């Protein structure tokens, strides 16, 4: 059937086009970083990795990454703890006012982020706190905690409460139930919460612009340099930043996987 072959080819073509659409900009960033001229003139006359050498040699690059990393790690720790506890209230227990809690929690996600950042900056200055990377952590948390909470809550919708009761009946203490029953069940949700918390904080621009003060995280630096003082350093730092975040995420995933492998036979 020749028509069947045509449609199969068309399907492959369609998926190919969609993938090309998604990957062209990423490839473009890499291509742009391989120039050594200030003005973008593609195809480059000279292909070079000078920008990468400059980026790795400069103190600014390290500083940017340290600030972004401090913010992201703090955000992950706080948002995972708050998100897990929040998810228990959100989905596990039925209590008076739960519907209102659910609605109030989702509200910050709808709030336009640049405005949220600005409003937080105004409140910080009103209270007399000068902005630094620590205030940026607070700002990120306002937006990321609800998202992490929702991600963990999804696990609770398929959760069987009877398991906990059975454990209690068999004489388990409260701590044991949490450790042996509840946490393993919601673990995939917690894990994706950690992952998304990190990546959302790492790449956040609108909140950081207003609240990070004199400390500049990566996206803010990238944004200002693209607007005012472009050079191939910008795409090369973008590539480095992306690689660093990918390595951190993959490393964390491997560590957790290894940990679960070590723990598994004990149970």
């Amino acid at each position, binding site marked *: 059937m020749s028509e069947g072959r045509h449609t*199969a080819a068309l*399907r492959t073509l*369609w*998926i190919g086009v*969609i*993938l090309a*659409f*998604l*990957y*062209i*900009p*990423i*490839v*473009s*960033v890499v*291509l*742009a970083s391989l120039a050594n001229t200030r*003005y*973008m*003139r*593609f*195809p480059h006359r000279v292909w070079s990795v000078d920008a990468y050498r400059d980026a790795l040699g400069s103190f600014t690059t390290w500083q940017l990454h340290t600030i972004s990393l401090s913010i992201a790690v703090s955000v992950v720790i706080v948002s995972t703890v708050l998100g897990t506890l929040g998810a228990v209230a959100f989905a596990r227990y039925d209590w008076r006012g739960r519907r209102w809690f659910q609605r109030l929690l989702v*509200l910050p*996600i*709808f*709030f*336009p*982020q*640049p*405005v949220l950042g*600005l409003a937080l900056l105004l409140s910080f200055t009103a209270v007399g706190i000068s902005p630094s990377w620590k205030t940026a952590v607070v700002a990120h948390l306002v937006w990321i905690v609800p998202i992490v909470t929702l991600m963990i809550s*999804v696990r609770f*919708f*398929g959760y069987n409460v009877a398991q906990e009761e059975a454990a209690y009946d068999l004489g388990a203490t409260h701590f044991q139930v949490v450790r042996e029953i509840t946490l393993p069940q919601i673990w995939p949700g917690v894990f994706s919460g950690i992952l998304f918390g990190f*990546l959302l904080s*790492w*790449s956040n*621009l*609108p909140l950081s612009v207003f609240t990070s003060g004199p400390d500049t995280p*990566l*996206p803010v630096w*990238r*944004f200002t340099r*693209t607007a005012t003082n472009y050079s191939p350093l*910008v*795409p090369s730092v*973008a590539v480095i*930043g*992306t690689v660093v*975040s*990918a390595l951190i*995420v993959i490393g964390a995933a491997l560590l957790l996987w290894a940990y679960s492998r070590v723990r598994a036979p004990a149970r």
Partner: protein
Amino acid sequence: MPERTFELTSAFTVENYATAFTEGYARPLMWSLIGAVMTTAICAVLAWPSAVILHRHAGRWATVVAALIALPIFISESVRLFGMSVFMMPRGGILAGTLNAVFGIQIGSILNTSSAALVGMVYIHLPFMLFPLLLGISLIPMDRIEAAKDLGANRWQVFREVELPLAAPGLTIGALLTFVLCIGANAEAAILGGRSVTVITTAIEQRFSFAQDWPMGAALTVLVIAITAAIVLPVLAKLDLNRLTRR
């Protein structure tokens, strides 16, 4: 509250809400709303066939392709939009430069127009539509489609009467997600749209920063949240999360 003042004790007024419509804020608001609606629609049109192909025809490639589509989400939005602008740049851009060097064709550029902003919006939000829709498509049992075909339904009828209602939950979640993200989006318009588009979040930001007109900025913010809530909450109430997750 009157312009250029900020005091909680001063007289309350709803004047700002009236002014919001008379003084040209309707335009950025419309940009954001139309942009969000169009992005949602275009994403749905692009994502539907992709989801169908991935679910029914891709076979063992499905996981690989899905992973490839998901991967860019993990790269910072501003990096990807920057890449898009480098690609679209006139003359020395990746596309224009390549066409000129290889084929000798000179082309214009859509960078700094509203179309470029729209392309950027679709580009950023496509995965957010595709994955919920994939869930929706997988809710359609194949034998239903076979049955409808046996009973004499044509393609359009199968799509409208069988596939669309059954995939509706996935489509709704995807549409909601895309829409809400688009209303708040401003990076696409700033990086790709240049000065040709002012979306509502940018307008609000300008009220707060350059214009020092906080009351108006606050009124616009409330307006945006109210509009978003008015669209999202009724849809959300109809959506049965428990039924979807229990599957």
